[in-house]
């Protein structure tokens, strides 16, 4: 991460909020801190951590495009998180604070460090960690649950817009020690949509992300994801089955378009 951006954020937050940079995504930089934006720190006995997601000015793009994108994405991400929080079964981080003027949101910290230096517990690292035994039950269970999360999301007419294995964070299940509960993060490109096209594209983006990042095992992985996805729809009765067929049909069409595209050099 460039020091310039870190300085910019530190200045915005003041010296009262010490920050630790953890990642630089394409549109946001992410920090952790132990200071809550508004609850007095004396209440933070558990030394809880928080996520600060800051969308820095992107100097490469025209200021008008930049401003409108930053505001739009900060707001839409906050709004979607807030709505999704109220939907039973969907796992997303809790929104703590939102400053749309500076493209800054505060979120609950999720996940942990994986053992043996495999890094943070997102799906990408988790799958890499399991590469020696790629089809074990825990992998299957986890991918199935990821599929379910996306199923729930789509069933409720929300689309993620940027589904990749790094945008899925795994949280240890406190009741069943070895199981993971997938949480969806990073809704910057998210939207509410009832269009099958958007859902089909969402699934296609994820499928491709799995193929490109976890190529050797992608077929099985995608199969499990779709299983979890489908079971959510199937549990919704006749209407669910009908909608599932529509989404999957469009998904196949989007995929086909992808292949056809390579026609012209």
């Amino acid at each position: 991460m460039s020091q310039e951006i870190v300085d910019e954020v530190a200045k915005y937050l003041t010296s009262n909020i010490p920050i630790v940079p953890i990642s630089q995504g394409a549109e946001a930089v992410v920090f952790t801190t132990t200071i809550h934006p508004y609850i007095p720190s004396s209440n933070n006995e558990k030394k809880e951590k928080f996520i600060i997601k800051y969308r820095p000015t992107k100097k490469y793009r025209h200021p008008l495009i930049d401003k409108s994108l930053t505001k739009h994405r900060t707001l839409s991400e906050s709004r979607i998180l807030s709505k999704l929080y109220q939907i039973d079964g969907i796992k997303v981080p809790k929104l703590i604070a939102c400053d749309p003027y500076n493209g800054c949101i505060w979120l609950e910290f999720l996940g942990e460090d994986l053992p043996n230096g495999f890094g943070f517990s997102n799906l990408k690292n988790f799958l890499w960690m399991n590469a020696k035994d790629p089809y074990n039950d825990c992998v299957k269970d986890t991918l199935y649950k990821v599929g379910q999360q996306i199923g729930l999301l789509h069933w409720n007419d929300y689309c993620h817009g940027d589904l990749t294995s790094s945008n899925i964070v795994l949280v240890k299940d406190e009741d069943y020690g070895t199981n993971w509960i997938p949480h969806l993060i990073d809704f910057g490109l998210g939207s509410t949509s009832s269009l099958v096209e958007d859902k089909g594209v969402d699934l296609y983006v994820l499928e491709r992300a799995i193929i490109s990042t976890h190529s050797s095992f992608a077929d099985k992985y995608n199969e499990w994801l779709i299983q979890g996805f489908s079971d959510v729809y199937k549990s919704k009765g006749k209407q669910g089955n009908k909608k599932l067929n529509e989404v999957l049909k469009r998904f196949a069409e989007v995929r086909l378009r992808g292949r056809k595209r390579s026609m012209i050099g």
Partner: protein
Amino acid sequence: MTLITIPQFPEYNVSITLFKDVTNSKVIRSHIADSKIAFLDAKLIVSTEQVYSAIYKALIENKYNRLRTKTILSECLFCLSPTSNIGDAFKKFGIKDDSKNVICLKVLSNGESLDDVNKEVLDVVDGTMIEFNDDNLKDMYDVTLVRKIYKLEKDFQPATTTELSRALVNAIQIRGL
């Protein structure tokens, strides 16, 4: 009495006092226009977090010159509301003639001590001062009213006050955007 400072805006100190069994709400209300204190009815306040988050929001608006009301104090009250209607927010969250449990907010001015504020608040409110904490608040809120005002989804059935509070904080943070 609680004194709160938002880490990002250390120049502002806000005092929060909670009273139960208030008997003179009607009188307080009649003087509200020229008061330097904001009075909230605790009926819609589920948690301390909810109030803190509104103060944070108000200070953000203040910092970027987006205040919709006249003062930071009134903005704090306005920021509790999930809608952008100012009059409506004051009516719903402000003190009512029959309010029993009241929360007083004050932005401390330069040189003002917590004792000064304490005295000032006690002068105005006839009631029992208790600590502003989640435990005390939890018996004061009206869950049906809260759900209605914050337009929570019907299917959203929070098991705990913490979960309910979270939904309110969300509404506060995304209001008017």
